[in-house]
């Protein structure tokens, strides 16, 4: 097991603040998703965690900074760029160079290539690799040292559906062995299936961190939907408690701020007949968009048909 603790991470590019006093914790035993809009500082944060970018704050892996780890690749596997390899060095040799630095047996290169499904191109030059194949090679490099912790930046980019399914299953199995997984992705549907915990940032600042269920249920689009022939008494009761009520077509009420049980009990107390009572849970996407509203670096206005950019690009 390993716990990642990020404390006060910060990074500026000139006058632009990319990461601002960001602190969070990643525990073993589950997949922690790292979410944020484009340009919110996810990749910069990951580079700061690994000491690849110079900034402020510290990140420790079971109390030790990355640079202090003995043979770090054997403890923390990282995937940062999909195509970080020399185009004419074979896939096998790419891994063997990294293995040499970490005193990893040369045979391990073939093992991880087979694991990620690249054994047939092990002796091929990767210059013609697709983005997905590049990601698989990057995953192979991350797994080379058989680490207990994985830090992956957008690992699903370029993968086909089968590849994404493989990645999801692997990461869940890996985390289930009390290992630690910290993975960024903009594929929210995928993250909803994969992640147990979330760290959500916007404009380099922490928006929230915690269980996926808590994040989703806290979203305003999570609501209790009530149907019945005469809901006026219930509406009156709901207006007196701390709930937000809206009327949907066909006399249906939508209640935000109370649980399904609380609404049911209230209806019982007021002797209101119900024909339907259900909880409509927000999707991770809805919860994410609500949580990060206003913190996007790049706004898309489909009505205007134009892209409005805020801040400066890096």
């Amino acid at each position, binding site marked *: 097991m390993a716990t990642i603790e990020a404390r006060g991470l910060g990074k500026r590019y000139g006058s632009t603040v990319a990461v601002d006093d960001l602190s969070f914790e990643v525990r073993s035993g589950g997949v922690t998703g790292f979410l944020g809009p484009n340009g919110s500082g996810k990749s910069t944060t990951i*580079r700061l965690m*690994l*000491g*690849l*970018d*110079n900034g402020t704050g510290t990140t420790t892996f079971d109390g030790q900074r*990355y*640079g202090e*780890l003995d*043979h*770090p*690749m054997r403890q923390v596997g*990282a995937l*940062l*760029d999909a*195509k*970080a*390899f*020399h*185009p*004419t*060095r*074979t896939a096998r*040799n*790419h891994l*063997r*160079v*990294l293995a*040499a*630095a*970490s*005193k990893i047996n040369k045979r391990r290169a073939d093992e991880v290539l087979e694991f990620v499904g690249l054994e047939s191109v092990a002796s091929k030059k990767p210059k013609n690799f697709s983005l997905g194949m590049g990601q698989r090679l990057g995953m192979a*490099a991350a797994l080379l040292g058989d680490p207990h912790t994985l830090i992956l930046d957008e690992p699903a980019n370029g993968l086909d559906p089968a590849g994404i399914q493989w990645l999801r299953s692997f990461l869940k199995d890996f985390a289930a062995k009390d290992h630690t997984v910290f993975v960024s992705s903009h594929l929210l549907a995928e993250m909803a299936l994969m992640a147990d915990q979330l760290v959500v940032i916007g404009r380099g600042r922490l928006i929230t961190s915690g269980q996926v269920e808590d994040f989703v249920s806290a979203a305003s689009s999570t609501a209790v939907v009530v149907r019945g022939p005469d809901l006026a008494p219930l509406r009156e009761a709901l207006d007196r408690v701390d709930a937000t009520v809206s009327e949907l077509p066909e006399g249906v009420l939508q209640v935000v701020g109370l649980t399904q049980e609380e609404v049911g009990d209230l209806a019982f107390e007021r002797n209101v007949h119900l024909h339907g009572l259900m909880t409509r849970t927000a999707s991770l996407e809805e919860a994410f968009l609500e949580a990060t509203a206003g913190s996007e670096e790049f706004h898309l206005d489909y009505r205007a048909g134009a892209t409005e950019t805020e801040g400066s690009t890096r």
Partner: protein
Amino acid sequence: MTAALRYEVARLRTLRSTWWLLGVSLVVAAGIGAIVAWAGTANDLGDNGLAIALSAGGEFSPVPLPPVLAGLVGVFALGHEYRYGTIRPALSAVPQRSALLLAKVVVTATWAALVGVVLVAVSYLVLLVFPGQDVAANGVPWDPAGRVALGFVVLMALWALVGLAFAGLTRNLPAAVVLLLVIPLVVEGILFAVLNFVPALDGISWWSKYLPFSAGQAMLATFDPGELGGPDFDLLAPLEGGLVFAGFTVILLAITWVLFERKDA
């Protein structure tokens, strides 16, 4: 440090360009050795001819090709890392930046020097087997042939390190290659001419002998052009020239080290 050395040796060994640059250097060294042996009188190359043959053209080339190719090996040592984004996996494997850079310096310089030794040996073998030559009987005198051969090996290592430093300073492979070719072949030539042929600059014409690549080339010198009736330029002695070029290399590497430590990967 050993992790960094293992990484760098594996990186150099698994790069195709390492081997084709070695191959080209061998062909050049053997070819120039054969040309000098053919051009020399039947049994007497002359001491200077021997020195020129052992240094792949030595001072008769504006820049001998093998040191330029060694410079490219140096450029690739850091330039490839930035061009292909492998600097991040490299620093993930070896997070101690100073150790990684030092390993690159040690391995690059050692490789270039070893190639230099091999090229000298190949040139000598060509002379040994060339019909009509009698190098074995005449031996290899220290001055100038032995001295120039040693200077050639040192020049190989220094060029490789300058290439590495240019890549570290620019973090851009094409820019580093351009610097490696343009500074010695164009910039220094222009500065040398301006300093020596513009009368108004007579007072500072002595600066021209400290142009770093030209100073390094002095390690391959076999004669003073002035003694043969040529222009009487103020040139450094071989050892002084080598020290000037080495000093230039150390300064570039020091700046590279500071940038490598401070900049984002």
